[in-house]
């Protein structure tokens, strides 16, 4: 009995030491260590921005508490045993083993099993509760909830608003459609229908909700709600082929009024810039394009420091037409866009583009990213993308199929820098 008590005392001492050491490590660590273990990136699951992600994080933390508790207790006993019962002498090392191991105390065994079960129940109850909560929009919020459809393509996302119909120039109506940037109202539950046209993708916005897969032939969905307006990063989370790693997207949550304004603009056909419509035609901007060689290890492709400082503000700024637009350049771009067969894959509602193999570009100028979140939508980056899509997205279908004929392997057309400049001007005019 006394032996047991002294053992217990020592165990608690070791426990304390371990916990202390662990805490110290976390608190004191130098800056680098702190960064290694930091959790504040744009895709952090800890910095939650909606109830679904919050529930998921809270549940995760329950498992962390329980498991850390187990680790510390079991670890302390183990550490104690390792230290206390180490062989202390040569003789110890060759000590004759006892004949019987003892079958242990059945009460201890059963107690440990019961204890394990009890600890698991602590995890199990919120798990089951949250399975139902995260599955679908809660009953009382269903009325106001909004529906969108997200469709995965190798390697980009298409978003449709089934309740927002737009008039097609050819007559008829179709749901509003956009690509790679999902804009939703904040404070309202959003139910996303998940579809795919090819392989499995997974729809994940870490700060808003955990992922659900886009399974071929299955009608999956998820829901989330953004507490506040903001700019959130999303990512395809199921391996889907060559460019899976860079199949990203963005979610922008807007206040009610902003959202309505955005919708109104989106429903309009593509903006047409003519000399008349331009108040002051400024001098033709001279783009200085960074060559592809400059895309080095340390360049940040998807966000310049300015952009990253406040992506939401940057996005808002994109909504207004750029200063310094040139009607001539834009018109030339529009022509190139159709001459170089871009229109066969991209829709520009109201203009020539009618293709559906690539993302809608009707309002591409108002998007903050291109190529499914890989590049920031600046003139330089857009130019680089059009110049060599395969460089940024190996295997992408725009290059293979658009620029390079898949069957023959021969280039279909070439673009020189000047032509690309005009296309960039055109695309950026599409606000």
């Amino acid at each position: 009995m006394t032996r047991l008590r002294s053992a217990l005392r020592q165990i608690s001492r070791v426990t304390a030491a371990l916990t202390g050491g662990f805490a110290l490590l976390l608190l004191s660590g130098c800056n680098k260590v702190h960064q290694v273990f930091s959790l504040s990136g744009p895709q952090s699951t800890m910095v939650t921005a909606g109830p679904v992600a919050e529930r998921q994080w809270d549940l995760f933390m329950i498992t962390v508490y329980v498991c850390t508790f187990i680790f510390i207790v079991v670890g302390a006993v183990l550490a104690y045993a390792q230290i206390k019962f180490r062989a202390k002498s040569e003789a110890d090392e060759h000590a004759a083993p006892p004949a019987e191991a003892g079958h242990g105390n059945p009460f201890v065994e059963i107690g440990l099993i019961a204890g394990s079960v009890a600890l698991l129940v602590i995890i199990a109850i919120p798990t089951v509760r949250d399975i139902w909560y995260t599955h679908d929009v809660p009953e009382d919020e269903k009325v106001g909830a909004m529906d969108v459809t997200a469709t995965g393509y190798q390697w980009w996302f298409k978003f449709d608003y089934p309740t927002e119909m737009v008039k097609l120039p050819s007559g008829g109506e179709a749901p509003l459609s956009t690509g790679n940037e999902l804009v939703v109202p904040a404070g309202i539950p959003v139910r996303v229908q998940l579809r795919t046209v090819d392989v499995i993708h997974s729809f994940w916005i870490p700060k808003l909700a955990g992922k659900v897969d886009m399974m071929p032939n299955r009608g999956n969905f998820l829901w989330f709600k953004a507490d506040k307006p903001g700019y959130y990063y999303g990512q395809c989370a199921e391996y889907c082929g060559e460019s899976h790693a860079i199949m990203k997207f963005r979610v922008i949550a807007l206040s009610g009024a902003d959202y309505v304004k955005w919708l109104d603009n989106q429903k309009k056909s593509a903006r047409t810039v003519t000399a008349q419509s331009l108040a002051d035609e400024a001098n033709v901007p001279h783009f200085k394009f960074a060559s592809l060689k400059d895309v080095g290890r340390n360049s940040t492709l998807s966000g310049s420091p300015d952009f990253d400082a406040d992506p939401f503000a940057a996005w808002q700024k994109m909504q207004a037409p750029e200063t310094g637009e040139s009607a001539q350049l834009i018109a030339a771009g529009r022509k190139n866009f159709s001459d170089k067969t871009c229109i066969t894959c991209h829709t520009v509602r109201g203009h020539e583009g009618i293709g559906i193999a690539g993302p809608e570009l009707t309002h591409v100028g108002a998007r903050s990213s291109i190529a499914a979140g890989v590049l920031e939508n600046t003139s330089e980056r857009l130019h680089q993308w059009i110049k060599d899509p395969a460089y940024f997205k190996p295997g992408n279908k725009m290059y293979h199929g658009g620029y390079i004929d898949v069957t023959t392997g021969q280039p279909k057309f070439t673009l020189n820098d000047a032509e690309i400049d005009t296309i960039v001007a055109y695309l950026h005019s599409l606000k």
Partner: protein
Amino acid sequence: MAQAIAKSDYTGAAHAPAKPTFGLFARPTTKTGLVSWLTTVDHKRIGMLYGGFAIMFFLIGGLEALMIRTQLIVPNNRFVTAQLYNELFTMHGTTMIFLAVMPLNAAFFNLLVPIQVGARDVAFPRLNSFSLWVWVVGAILLNVGWLSHFSDLFAGFGGAPDVGWFGYSPLTSKQFTPDLSTDFWVLGIQVLGLSSIVASLNFIVTIINMRAPGLTMMRLPVFTWMALVTSFLLILALPAIAIALVEVMFDRNFGTNFFEVSGGGQPILWQHLFWVFGHPEVYILILPPMGYVSEILPTFSRKPLFGYPIVVFSGVAIGFIGFGVWSHHMFTTGLGTIATAAFALATMAIAVPTGVKVFNWIGTLWGGRIVTRVPMMFALGFIWMFMMGGLSGIMHSAAPADAQQQDSYFVIAHFHYVLIGGATFALLAAIHFWFPKFFGRMVPEFWGKLSFWLIFVGFNATFFPMHFLGLNGMPRRTWTYDANMGWNEGNLFATLGAYLLGLGIFTYFAVLVWSFFKGKPAGNDPWDARTLEWSIPSPPPEHNFAAIPTVHARDAWWYEKTHKEEIAMEKAEHIKAEESHGGIHMPDQSWYPILAASGLLVGAYNMAQFRHPLSFFGRTLGFDYGNSADPLHPHHFELGHVHLAMTGLCILVSACYLWSLEGPGGYHIHLDANGNATESRGGYHH
């Protein structure tokens, strides 16, 4: 009793017939040289071959891992292309699981099980040799695609497999991966599965039927118990993936619609079938390591294993429950609430029997005298690291939380903790522990300990930060990442850790190589251990035991050491009885297993590409492949891979038939008073 032994009962093979009635290839009798290794049926040699190949693939898989880590060392890195990166992680996962850890376990089954049950070989020695060579065939098929990176002659292979280690359909469909690499992946895994099933059937029979007198099931060493449970898991789990692979193969080559959405197929079925295999598979990887640890801890605590029956029972329970939790890999696939909840709870339940094992290991240490030799350090490291990995597994089992963790680096951290901190640590412990037994030399303590610390520190530096990378939203299978995601430092740290880990692994194996040549000679029983393999010389003679032991207690060798006279008398009697019945009966070598396996190689290699024109070093042979535009004869073959595949099948079937006619064969070993062996052949019968 002696009577029973005399009938060579525990070798499982019958006496040699008077003369072989049917024989095409005479059974080789040479004991040295290449032929002796190719035709060997000796479980120890087969085990060494398994082990050698597995370690080679472990290093290759590790090299692939280092390339992965190098690519991720800084953001927007272009060290490898996206395509190559995808091949690297696919082959890294596949290699580590199917070509490193599984065969290393198979190596230990081979080396230890027959000795631990007191037998002279496995129940079906030639079948054992067949499993080995079939495994080699599978390994070749999986890796043959790499050739296309080295020579344009093989460009047709389209690189190594790149569909991820669980090859989710529809990515494996002809539409998305038209090249041959996926076909080789499908057939490679299929062939490896065949090898494992055959080997497992053999071990089930060996363990159940070939136990020495007195060795009841509840006296079996825990390792042997775990080998038994693992073998059962293998024969019951592999069929699911075998059928699923057949379905993929049919989809790719015969236009079926199992996973083709356009024909009404449901790709999710692949996931279910894969994980029906895949989850038991992770226990297939970890149960044998739990066995090694259960052997090593008591030895170095100088105390029998605590709670033996419970440890055994919990191993069986883990294996059994493991069949009911597969969908925890599919929490994000939209299973619906009820199924998700059911699988989440079942998954949590596994923590209980696993915990029981951990508690009993600690119970074994408790009150012992812990000698921290190198194997013990790895075994203790195993408990610590496995516990961490297991606990992060429990975090995954909370399904809603897993929606954030699934397919992120958090999973990578979880499973490397159980696979390296668990399985690999235990394997490194086992290699170090049994090295003296099978090579007769000791590994120097200092270098062993150094490698332990390098590996331990390197491992934690690599994988501990990955938890945080995962929580910070880094998805797995990420070829490259942008600099503004907050993952730069974590990845840099992990990569440096991986280099340290690589250095540790390198040290570990370099020291083994050194010891093989220069190590201090080890006696029969350098660790003062407990089980039967330590009662025989190091390295063990071909026939294992001069006398089949009679087992009186759980730790049979500890018992023998304390009851020397009793045992000596028993043994003398057994030897006499056996000699009076013709001596020690040993199985004969045979050509047919490797011949059959080579037929399988020819068959599977050609089967994989049978819709492709036959080519030889990049040149299509002059046969018209047919006119696929002609709807009536879409596939019109001249001489093609089909014919070669059929030839392979014929070789396989004929070799098996001749094998069955070969008769049991065998020869006898006679030991004189000094233990010197002479051999005799023919129908020796007194």
